[in-house]
């Protein structure tokens, strides 16, 4: 699941933290400092290297740096070297605007890539729009981004609202015998979580009887009373709009305390966090839990496999543990490179025009192609599930995809 987080807490991308330390050290030596103007192509980026979004900001930094290293190893862009100019915005929408202004007007960057999170993407996109720059980004997929209808926004990742579409399709099409009889929707009012659950609810429609729809505030930390309410409804299926591991772990805990096990359970964020999720809920309880995602480390896409292998070589860890942020950032670079190569220039007006032309680029996240408002609807979302007593995390949707395996149904009772 994309972690286009809005709220007051940070998403647990703890697994990245250690690798990030290494990245920051090696990065300074890997990317030459842009003292010489003219020759290199400078790319300006503001990232949240501290504050609420720092875990993801640091992961994004790694993804951008990995891309820059690769493109330079392949001879750069238009024969020119690519250098990244990264500034920290401490997750503040005021600072992020200052940073992009500085990147363009003081540092004279040629291109701009997006910051982390939708929250910061919109003000930054407006700021660079005043300079006629394109804002190519991978972490700003909330509805508000596209409602603004800015001509310079290009989000390479599938808009968040569509994340649960394959799940909705699968669950609605189950034979009557195995299909859940009732379903409960409960979601944080985080602007990038609620749309996912709302879209799933719309797509499932009347094929499963909805027994409840509860919205809880994104700043809540005590979820027990809300989870209790859900448990009392005793629905066969639960669609949870969680924002991180603690949210879903609290719900699972409360369900277990109330001796209620849904047959099907999917959550927007948390189960995708690998070991930190298993550590919080226990492998046995994780079994059967589903989560949507647009990308993951074991993806069969050859471009993706190449990037993952490089990432693991450079930063350590396992392929399955690679954060989706890395791929999102890498895809931004690939998309920009395609535009620069196709237009043979770093003229932002030409780049914007090309990106709007409907041209398709193959990237680590799959295909990228933009509509009028900068959405990439060509990408497909997947659903993953923890299986075999929580020991494996596998792709189960879309049904029919060559990498999808059968869904484990129903979910085992808690504590087994």
């Amino acid at each position, binding site marked *: 699941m994309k972690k286009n987080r809005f709220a007051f807490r940070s998403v647990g991308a703890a697994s990245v933290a250690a690798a990030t330390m290494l990245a920051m050290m090696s990065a300074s030596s890997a990317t030459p400092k842009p003292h010489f103007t003219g020759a290199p192509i400078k790319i300006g980026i503001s990232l949240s290297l501290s504050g609420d979004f720092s875990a993801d900001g640091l992961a994004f930094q790694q993804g951008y740096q990995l891309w820059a290293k690769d493109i330079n190893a392949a001879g750069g862009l238009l024969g020119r070297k690519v250098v990244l100019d990264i500034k920290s915005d401490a997750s503040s929408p005021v600072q992020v605007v200052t940073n992009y202004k500085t990147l363009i007007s003081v540092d004279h960057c040629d291109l701009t890539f997006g910051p982390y999170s939708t929250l910061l993407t919109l003000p930054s996109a407006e700021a660079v729009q005043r300079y006629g720059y394109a804002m190519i980004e991978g972490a700003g997929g909330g509805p508000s981004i596209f409602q603004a209808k800015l001509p310079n926004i290009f989000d390479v990742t599938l808009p968040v609202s569509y994340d649960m579409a394959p799940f909705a399709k699968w669950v609605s099409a189950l034979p009557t015998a195995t299909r859940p009889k009732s379903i409960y929707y409960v979601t944080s009012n985080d602007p990038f979580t609620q749309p996912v659950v709302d879209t799933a609810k719309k797509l499932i429609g009347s094929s499963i009887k909805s027994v409840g729809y509860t919205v809880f505030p994104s700043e809540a930390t*005590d979820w027990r009373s809300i989870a209790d309410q859900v448990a009392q409804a005793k629905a066969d299926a639960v669609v949870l709009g969680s924002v991180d591991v603690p949210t879903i772990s609290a719900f699972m805990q409360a369900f277990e305390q109330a001796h209620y096990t849904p047959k099907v359970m999917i959550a927007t964020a948390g189960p995708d966090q690998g070991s930190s999720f298993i550590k919080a809920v226990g492998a046995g309880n994780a079994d059967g839990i589903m989560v949507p995602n647009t990308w993951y480390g074991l993806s069969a896409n050859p471009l993706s496999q190449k990037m993952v292998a490089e990432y693991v070589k450079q930063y350590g860890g396992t392929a399955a543990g690679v954060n989706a942020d890395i791929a999102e950032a890498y895809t931004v670079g690939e998309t920009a490179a395609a535009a620069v190569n196709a237009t043979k220039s770093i003229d932002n007006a030409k780049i914007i025009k090309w990106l709007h032309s409907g041209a398709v680029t193959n990237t680590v996240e799959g295909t990228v192609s933009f509509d009028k408002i900068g959405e990439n609807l060509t990408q497909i979302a997947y659903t993953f599930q923890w299986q075999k007593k929580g020991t494996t995390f596998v792709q189960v949707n879309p049904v029919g995809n060559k990498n999808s395996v059968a869904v484990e149904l129903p979910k085992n009772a808690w504590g087994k």
Partner: protein
Amino acid sequence: MVHALIDGVLTGSVYALMATGLTLIFGVMEIINVAQGIFVILGAYLSYYLQLHFGIDLFAGLLITIPTMFVVGIVVQRLFLARLKGPEKTAMSILVTYAISLVIEGILNIAFTVNNVQLNTSYTNKSFQVFGVYIPYIYFMGFLLAIVLLSGLYYMLYRTRFGASIRASLADQSAAALVGIDVKKVSTICFGIGIAVTAAGGMVFGATNAFNASTSYDLISRLLTIIVLGGMGSLAGALVAGIAMVTLEDLVGAIWSPVWSTMAFFVVLVVVLSFRPQGLFGQQSARAA
């Protein structure tokens, strides 16, 4: 409904414990300790650290964390708060304790990162059934802990000599000094006690909520609301308002929507204060300054 009521009373007692520390500090020293929220989180992180690195059980760990927080309180009081005097003392105390809370927040962010954590043990997933309602052990044990500590505190206040001098200082500092009470010593120890209860409150909070350092903002706004509603400096007020407010919050969440439950908290405060500016149990009238 029944669920929400039980949840409210169980959780509310823990808030009452934390608020009692806050109101005690205010009553004796006229200091509004805005850092109470971060001290609760500090207490929670201490339990977290002991469990993670030394495998010490959450409840057993209190034997270490409570005295630790007591000492932290005394150091803070001696270093910073004892220096405050003059007519702006209360206003200044808010700023000083706020600054302290910023520093602790920064340190906690560096030490533990900003990722949310929650305290987990073998018994946090277990529950027992009463009248058809499942009650998690951790909530019940937290409730018992709060009751035990509150009873201990009340016993100390109402049955011991030292307690009598605290109560005298609560009522009137200068009169207490006149009858030979060492107000300075009483103040320091009171501050220590007020902070020490956050170790227990923090442990239970951390076992029932996900937290990071910035959770302290949410906590302190609730705690302040509770003591203002109960009447600042009133021990009974903190107890009653703590339980009542949290129960009300849970009821609103169950009946209406969780989105508005926190709001109920503040609305009640504003309504009550429009009729009783001194709070529910406030003894002093609404005199100025």
